[in-house]
């Protein structure tokens, strides 16, 4: 299995696809960090140093969006691009039947591919966050505290699991669909559905199921519960809720997608004191476990299908 793993990783890093993807993500990240740090400097200069300023690099928006939002929306694309042709390309070029006639177990192939994708994503994320942290340190002149570092590490972990979910999803499609194009399209369709339709449409769905009634608090609570329930179907929401709590310890709610400026972020709707990391983790745990479960289920299904698939006509 290690041999396949090694080859897959080498393939990932050698591919033009990865290079383009990484450059794109890097450009956006650099730009956002630059804008955010300029923003932070101009708005917070003169005041006393607030806590957890360093993490704001990742959570406050520059001109358009914050870095976490960017990853929440476009992270899936990274996973999809790495996985959508994992199995079916080998099937189409005839290398799959060759691989299978070598002394390797069949599951080693899927496992190695998934792990190689995950490893590539991890390397990508770690290098990205390190790079941006370094840049941020220079730009805003604040050194992260130990807890901030710990929070960043947790953030990276969640991000990798999140993108891993999409990787698993893409591999699932690449097992199901013989054609590379169909698999890519299916993954992208699912991504758009989950991040845009559910992301923005859950309010409407909830309003249809339980029409909101301003005078009746019971109905309003019910409506809010349904909204929350639906939004949690979407890994995008799960992820952004989870990361916003981890990266912003003052946050009173897990809801994100509210574009907060740095000053608002400090003074509005927040806890008086920062939540300790362990408490943040506690808040986030259910989200994290749900994403993890989704990833495992997704990969599990593709594993099962691949194991049962007839080799015939490969």
């Amino acid at each position, binding site marked *: 299995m290690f041999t396949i793993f090694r080859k897959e990783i080498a393939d990932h890093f050698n591919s033009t696809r990865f290079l383009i993807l990484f450059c794109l993500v890097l450009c956006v990240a650099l730009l956002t960090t630059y804008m955010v740090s300029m923003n932070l400097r101009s708005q917070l200069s003169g005041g006393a140093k607030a806590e957890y300023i360093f993490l704001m690099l990742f959570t406050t928006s520059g001109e358009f969006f914050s870095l976490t939002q960017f990853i929440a929306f476009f992270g899936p694309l990274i996973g999809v691009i790495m996985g959508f042709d994992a199995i079916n390309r080998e099937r189409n070029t005839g290398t799959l039947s*060759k691989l299978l*006639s*070598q*002394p390797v177990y069949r599951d080693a192939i899927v496992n190695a591919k998934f792990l190689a994708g995950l490893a590539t994503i991890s390397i990508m994320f770690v290098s990205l966050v390190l790079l941006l942290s370094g840049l941020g340190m220079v730009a805003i002149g604040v050194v992260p505290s130990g807890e901030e570092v710990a929070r960043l590490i947790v953030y990276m972990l969640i991000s990798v699991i999140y993108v891993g979910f999409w990787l698993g999803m893409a591999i699932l499609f690449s097992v199901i669909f013989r054609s590379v194009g169909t698999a890519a399209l299916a993954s992208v369709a699912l991504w758009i559905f989950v991040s845009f339709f559910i992301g923005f449409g859950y309010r409407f769905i909830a309003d249809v199921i339980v029409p909101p009634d301003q005078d009746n608090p019971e109905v309003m609570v019910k409506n809010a519960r349904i909204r929350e329930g639906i939004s949690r179907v979407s890994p995008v929401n799960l992820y952004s809720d989870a990361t916003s709590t981890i990266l912003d310890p003052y946050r009173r709610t897990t809801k994100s997608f509210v574009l907060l400026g740095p000053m608002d972020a400090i003074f509005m709707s927040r806890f008086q004191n920062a939540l300790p990391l362990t408490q943040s983790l506690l808040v986030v745990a259910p989200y994290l476990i749900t994403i993890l479960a989704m990833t495992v289920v997704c990969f599990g299904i593709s594993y099962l299908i691949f194991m049962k698939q007839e080799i*015939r006509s490969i």
Partner: protein
Amino acid sequence: MTAVIETAELTKVYGGQTAVDHLTFEVRQGEIFGFLGPNGAGKTTTILMLLGLTEPTSGSARTLGFDPMRQPLKVKEQVGCMPENVGFYDDLTAHENLMYVARLNSVPDSQAKTRIDAALKKVKLAGEANKRVGAYSRGMRQRLAIAEVLIKNPKLIILDEPTLGLDPEGINSMLELIKVLSREEGISVLLCSHLLHQTQQVCDRVGILNEGKLVAKGTIKELAGEGIRAKEGKLSLEDIYMRYFQEE
């Protein structure tokens, strides 16, 4: 002589359709066995069952004395299989492709290099070892596939339509290569083909498969003797073959 492949009443049913029907045959140590039949006769399915890639519906198979369903890795360690339409990683060189296969077979890197060089030399590709496989011609790819099979020092090789899509010269050199491997290295060969004329040149024994059933088995002479008068005294596998299919 011991048998390297033995099947007994091997049957495979795909969704109500019988692909292989109570197939019983054996391939002996060191011989070239021609496995013939029209397209869709069940040749490829049989190969898959021999390698443990597909589970037989009933019956049993033994490859090199192992049960391919129970010990697929033992079988795949010693059997080189060249599937129909072999694929390579086009963006890697021939050497890199073979290196990957060597590693998959847990051949240590130091040994792999000498084995790869020897194998490439045998198939006359030593000069193109560092060329990307994407730039290979069809004939070169087929020969590379043979080299790939040789990397694991197999006791038995299974070739599925190895001459498909080759020009006459390519076919001859391919058949020559198969003969050499069998005679000089003592490798047993199961050669699947529907191209009878070619098979006739190299095979020691043949089995003719139609609609999943083995309709004939033996040396070409034996088959010719089974009540079939060859035209003008010349024994042609083609005649034998046609006779079997005209009877239906």
